[in-house]
Every structure is written in C-alpha cells, then in structure tokens.
C-alpha cells in the first residue's frame, strides 16, 4: 500500500467533494431557504442541485480539454500571462474571503451556543491553527482526514432524524402555493451551501482517474450532498409548525435537537455542534488549501506551505474584523456576486474561449 504523496485515488474524490461541500451553511440552511420558499424549501434544494450540476459540467469540460494542467495554469494558457495572473489573484482573494466568511460564521455560532464569553480570537485561531496543521503537509494526508471524518455525517443525520418523531407531514402542503419564483429564489440560497466541487477541479492533475470516472464520482458525491440537504430541510419543514416558525430561528437544527431529552444525556445540541465543528474545519481546510495553492502558482513556488502562514493570518484578521464590526451580512452580499462570478461566469467564459480557440485551430490545420 505504498501511496505517492500527492496523488488522489479515484475512490477519494467522493469524500473530498462531500467534505468540501458540507460545511458551515448546514446549520442555517432551512432558515435561509425558508425565508424565500416557505414550505417548498425542499424543492429549492433539488433545483439548486440541478443548477450546481451545470457548474460541475462546465468546470469538468474546461479541465478535460487541458489534461495535466492545474486550473491556474489553464487561466494563463487561455487568457495570456498578465490576465491569467489577475485571474489567479482574483480567485485567491475570493477563496480567502470565503474562508474568512466561513470562519466568522463559525465564530458567531460558537459564541451564540457554547462559549458565550470566550474571546473570538481564541476560538477562531484554534480553528485556523488546527486546519493549517492538517493542510500544511501532503495533499494525501488531508484527503485521508476527509475520508476519516465522513462517517461523522451519519451521526449528524441520525441526530436530526430523531426529530421525525414529532413530525407532521401535512406541514409541507400545499406544494408550490406561490408559484415557482420563490422556489428559485430559495434555491439561490441553497447553492451557496453546495459550493465545494471546485476542489476536485482545482486539483485535477493530481487525480489518478480517467475523465469520466472523475465526473461520475463528483456527480455521485454531489447527488449525495443534494439529497442530504433535501432530507435535512425536509425534516425541519415537517418539524416546525409553519414556515413562520423557521423564520424565527436562524439555526433550526440546533433548536430541534435541543428539545430532545434522552434519559442518559441531555442537550444533544452541544454534541451536534461539536461534530459540526469538524465539518466546518474540512471546508475551511479546502479553502485554505486552494488559496495557498493560488498564491504558490502566482509566485511559481514549488510548495504551498510557504504561503500558508500569510493566508492564515490574513483570514484570521479579516474574520475577526468582520465579527467585531458585525459586517457578516455585507460580506455575504459581496460574496454572492463573487460566487456567481467565480464559480459560473468565469469558467463558462473560459470554456467558451477554449472551444472557439480549438475550432479556429482546427480550421487552421485544415487549411
């Protein structure tokens, strides 16, 4: 079982994608969607899954046409050196911003639910340090960690499923009462919790599998996550009396789980949050890794470790500032635009360019 340090086995892709996707958003997912879609939130997640499939396809087609190249190299190849570098900087900043958002969101929930009086910087720097420790070595060790913690999701599902005891399935009726517009609006919120497929595409050359295998694995993982989200949203929908109730609780799952009483142990929400921290850590790790890789590509450095301390520090400071000045919502608005731009529009444009280039290249060859 001798494994090369940075290669990714095809079986590992599924775990990578699942762990990158499931993260900080999972706690407030039903709340965010129900703001728009009310009792049809579960349809919104399904719609979001389909939309994300398109994004996956675009990125995959892009990577497929340039095998053996990192995403960052493809930028340079397609748009020229200068513009490519700008793109790399843009992506790096995007990943860093996203990671500081994840970090401060996590800090907020910890502050609200477990450690009310602990200073932010302790809770946040613990997260940054542990994640940096795992990211700093080989890719393989990080992915092994992702595989190891995946079974914890089952515990999360089991804990949430307990709520079905008090469920009333009539609560999801009537379906599509207000037409399809609110559902689409809700799915926009759901998409943000599904980001993370890009991890595979940014590490494409390291994956030891054929193109179709990679696509299959990514789609399989994405399907799992979509179903998981749909299931979780569904549970919270049938648990809470009316969509108005959900709109009052920003973290519906914790409220749900908090109300259970087992004979041996109470307040399962504390355990739930403890396990959820691991999920946050994995998605934070992937963002750290990608931004470090981005910087390493920018400066043509062989290892991403060199830039890790800088990125960790910047992320930590940004997220602390966000938390203290209570600017989470503002950043979220900016990030929303960034998500569209960096996850969908730019890859689609690049794909378009590459197709056009190929066609013109073919024509030239014919002539």
């Amino acid at each position, binding site marked *: 079982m001798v494994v090369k340090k940075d290669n990714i086995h095809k079986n590992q892709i599924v775990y990578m994608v699942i762990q990158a996707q499931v993260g900080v958003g999972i706690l407030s997912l039903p709340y965010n969607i129900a703001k728009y879609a009310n009792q049809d939130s579960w349809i919104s997640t399904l719609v979001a899954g389909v939309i994300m499939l398109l994004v996956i396809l675009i990125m995959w087609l892009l990577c497929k046409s340039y095998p053996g190249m990192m995403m960052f190299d493809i930028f340079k190849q397609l748009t020229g050196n200068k513009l490519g570098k700008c793109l790399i900087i843009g992506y790096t900043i995007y990943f860093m911003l996203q990671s500081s958002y994840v970090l401060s969101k996590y800090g907020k929930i910890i502050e609200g639910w477990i*450690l009310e009086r602990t200073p932010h910087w302790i809770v946040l720097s*613990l997260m940054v340090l542990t994640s940096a420790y795992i990211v700093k070595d080989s890719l393989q060790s990080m992915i092994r960690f992702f595989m*190891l913690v995946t079974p914890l999701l089952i515990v999360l599902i089991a804990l949430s499923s307990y709520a079905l005891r008090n469920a009333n399935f009539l609560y999801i009726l009537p379906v599509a009462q207000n037409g399809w517009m609110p559902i689409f609006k809700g799915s926009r919120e759901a998409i943000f919790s599904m980001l993370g497929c890009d991890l595979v595409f940014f590490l494409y050359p390291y994956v030891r599998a054929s193109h179709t295998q990679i696509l299959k694995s990514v789609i399989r993982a994405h399907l799992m996550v979509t179903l998981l989200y749909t299931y979780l949203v569904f549970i919270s929908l049938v648990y809470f009396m009316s969509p108005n109730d959900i709109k009052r609780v920003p973290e519906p799952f914790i409220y749900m789980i908090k109300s259970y009483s087992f004979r041996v142990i109470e307040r399962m929400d504390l355990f739930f949050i403890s396990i959820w921290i691991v999920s946050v850590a994995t998605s934070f790790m992937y963002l750290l890794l990608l931004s470090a890789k981005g910087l390493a590509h920018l400066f043509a450095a062989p290892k991403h470790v060199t830039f890790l301390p800088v990125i960790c520090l910047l992320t930590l400071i940004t997220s602390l500032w966000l938390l203290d000045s209570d600017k989470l919502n503002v950043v979220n608005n900016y990030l929303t635009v960034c998500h569209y731009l960096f996850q969908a529009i730019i890859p689609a444009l690049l794909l378009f360019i590459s197709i056009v280039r190929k066609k013109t290249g073919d024509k030239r060859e014919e002539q």
Partner: protein
Amino acid sequence: MCNSTTMDSVHLEHHLNAIFKHAEDFTIETLQGPQCNILIAYFDTLADKKKLHRYVMEALMPVVAEQQNIAISSTLHFKIIQKVDNLQELLLTGSCLIQIEGEHPIYAVDVSIESPRTVEEPENEKVIQGSHEGFVEELRRNVYLIRKTLKTKDLVVKYMKIGDDVQSELCFIYMPQRAEQQVIEEMEQRILNATTSGLRSIGDLEQLIEDSPRSPFPQMLNTERVDRVIALLKQGKVIIFVEGSPACLIAPVHFNDFMRASDDYNSRWMSSMFISGLRWLSIIVAIFLPAFYIAVVAFHFEVLPDELVMPIKTSINEIPFPPLIEAFIMELTIELIREAGLRLPARIGATVSIVGGLVIGDAIVKAGLISTTMIIVVAITAIAAFCIPTHEMSETVRLLRFPFMLLAACLGFVGMSFGIILIWGHLCKLESFGSPYFMIITFEDVKKQVQAFLFGKADPSPRQTKWQRIQQQISAKGWNFLGRKKR
C-alpha cells in the same frame, strides 16, 4: 600486519595478548607434548568447560602424544581460519583458537556456553488460548524459533551490523513473496545510514529508523510472541531482531495491529469481534473520559439529566479544587501507583496497591479533597488503559489524556473537538515505511466482507482475523459449505 599463513604461535600469542591486555578472563594455555607444543586461547567466562574438554582437549591428546598432524584438520568441529581480522570476534563469541607450534593454520572451535534461558511465555503479552512460546535474548535461537514453525524456502534471513565502535548484530526476516520490496529497501537504507555509538536496546533502533520521531504514536510494533510474529510475517511484514533483546520490531504497521491480541486469532469470530470492539471502546474511554467529565462539570452542566444533577452536584460541592486540578492529582496518583508497583517485587507490590488503592482512594474522599465521581472516572479510565493489548499504545494513550484534559478545562466540548481533529489529522499524516498508518478500515474491506458473508465469495486478504479466515474457508474448504443445509 600479518595474515594467518604467516603468523606462527609466538606471534599469535603476542598478538592476542596485545589486544586483550586488560582482560583477565582471557586464557592462553600451552599443551606441551614430546614433539610439539599446542597453543590454546579462549575466554574463560565465555567457554563451556565441558565442551572445551570434549571437543578440544580430547581431540588434541592424540596429536600431542603421537604427532598426528593430519588428524586435526579432519576433526569435525575444527575450522581453519582464513582471516586474522576475525580472531577477535571469534574469541568474543565464545570460540577457542588453536595453533600447533611450527605450523601456520589457526583453528577455531565453538565452545560457547549454551544460553541458560529457556523458551517461556512473555510476561507482558499473555494469552489464554494459543501458543505460549516467547523469544529469548539470543538472536540465532529466535531465528530457530521462527524457522521451526515456518518451514518454507520462502523466508529470507539477513544479518546486518549497526554501530560504530560497539557493533550490534541485527537480523532481518521477511517473506519476499509477500513483503513489499520498497519497504525492505527503505528499511535497509535507514539502518545502513544510521549512526550510533552502540545500541542500548531495541528501542534505540526503533528511534533511529522510525518515520516521525516527534509523534507520540508508536510506529513499529514491539512483540516477544512467536505466534504473533509468524502471523505478521505471513501478512508481509518485515521483522528485525537485535542480539540481546527478546523483543523484535515489526514494520510496516497500522494502528489496528496495536489493537490486536493473539487471542483474536483463536476465539470464535463473534466473541473475538465483541472483545475487539470492547478494546476500541476502551481506547476511547481511556483518552476522552476524564476530559469529557471535566468539560461537563466545568462547562456543560446542562448535559446531565435532572436525576444525575443532584448526586454529582453534592459530590463536588465541597471540593476546594477546580475539576482540572482534581483530575490531575488523581491521574498522577494512579500513574505513580502503577509505576511503583511495576518496579517492586510482587510481594511488596501488593502493599503498594493496598496503600494506593484503599488508603489514598478512601481517605482522599473522606478528607474532602477529591470528589467521589472523580475517583470513579479516574478508576474507569485506568482500567480502560490497561485493556489495550500493546504496551506502547497503552503508554501513548495514557499520555494523550493529559492534553485533552487541559483542552476540556479551557474550552469544554469545543476544545475536545479541536483536540480530536488534531489527533486524527496527525494520525492521517503518519506513515509507517510508506504505508498509511491510520488505515482502520477501507471501503473495499467492507465490501469484501459483506460479499463473503452473503455469497461466500472470498478473497484471501493479508490482514486476517478469525472472522476473515472463516470467510476465506468458505471457499477454501472445497466442499459446498453454504449449500450443505439445502441438501
């Protein structure tokens, strides 16, 4: 200086006397016959008197008396030495050197004392069922113990030396068909490159060649059991013996190998699965229970159900210390008792356990220093740590408990979560000679097991317990094992 063909007995005597100037147990005798003198050199302390008499003196008597020079070389036990460099080493391993005056060849006879220690069961790795053989301090005898059971041509035994001035002999054993060539090469390379001024024990060697010396986890398995070594050899592992140590090092290992006792291979699969499950539980309890208790008492009292709140509250109400200090005092006391009991002879050991267990345990509660619940938690933790079958892993676990207690006292469950992430991340990084260390179970394994159980399709896997072996037997038995009931 001179070689065996040129050195005569006078030279030899001078040469040897110069080397072993200060060794008073070094003996040189001269047998004086009517025709020729014979020089005999040996170490008094290393030579067996009976052997010396039987193989050397008796064989030499006719030579001394009747000048039968030819007879000497045809005597079975005598070997002619080719190189003078070997002389020193031969003498030190208990050989006797012989030279007839006026002739050049030097003969050597092995008259070393047989090791007095017999093969017995290792003290620290007892089993209920199965073989009771353990290794001894002698290298060749250990190799013999393996060869005796593993009668195959497919077994490589390779001797090596390590050390600059005081050299220790090592022995590599592996099955080339099953072991990975890369691992063997890597291991040999590391041993060759290691510089040491002499090994004190097998632990020294382990530290010299392991992958991450800064990790708290053991990366090579250390065992004295013959059956365990043979089972591991068949799984394609490499075994290293060091002269003078009854334990051997095994690599590459996984975390699982430390959690497996030889009994697992012998009991029925249901009970063996139950017991090994219990062991996994014990490792979790041994690391996390005190930390969990501290986190609950110090941070998350609301986790306790209503019925439990009052008993625990009354028990800790009067205690002057914070829970962390309380836990540290008790944990350290237990470690002290354990260490004291370990070094003392068995009879005094009983006193220690009475003083430690009864007197301290009882009095400390009555004095109101430590709460009863804390005593219970610490006792359960200590017992759980003793359930771990390998000594090194048990030590690691006992050590890891302390940082977790600290984290739990500072940040409660959040701290513990991060502790777990760190430990798991660290375990995922660890590699034992190129193979991942923390490979508890893979998806393929599960698939194989389920397939084997449902359909009787089995694929012999290198890492087998009884449970896996049964699966394999279904196909190996050759008759329709699953279909017999239908018939």
